[in-house]
């Protein structure tokens, strides 16, 4: 049982690391601000979610697990809000200039 949980953790964390890699590659390669912002928000938050899922079996108790989930949800909320606000800033600057 423990070995199965460990393997699940390793798989989830590896998937999360892959999404971080994808997000960073996109950051380095995409041509303009808005597409970079999109890649950053989506890929990195998904990567964080997978890392959290991978760490859940190792959390010490229900409250620690709930805290981990809370962290991910907060990061999602922040990412969603901030990406919208930054995109709006980019747009108003473009319209005005």
């Amino acid at each position, binding site marked *: 049982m423990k070995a199965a949980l460990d393997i699940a953790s390793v798989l989830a964390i590896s998937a999360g*690391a892959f999404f*971080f890699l994808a997000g960073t590659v996109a*950051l380095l390669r995409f041509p303009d*601000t808005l597409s970079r912002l999109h890649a950053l928000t989506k890929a990195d938050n998904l990567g964080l979610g997978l890392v959290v899922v991978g760490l859940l079996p190792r959390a010490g108790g229900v409250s620690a697990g709930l805290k981990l989930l809370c*962290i991910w949800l907060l*990061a999602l909320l*922040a990412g969603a809000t*901030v990406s919208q606000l930054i995109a709006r800033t980019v747009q*108003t600057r473009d319209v005005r200039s």
Partner: protein
Amino acid sequence: MLDFLLAAAAFVLAMVALGLFRILRGPTEADRMMAVQLLGSGGIAGLLLAGSARIPATVDVALTLALLAAFASIAFVMSAAGETER
């Protein structure tokens, strides 16, 4: 398992470093504002991977970071878009 977690933490932080390098170079202010968001997701992932295996209280630090990274990003955008102030 611990070695794997630390290696994953190092990898994620390397990704964050690469991303920061690109973002901080970015020509517009909006590009730079993304740095806080990058750290908010990547930095928290790295922190959780590096710390929670050995020190359980790292989760509290990550929780505080998540709350305040959200807040810092929002304050960023509010300040940079200063034209909306009455």
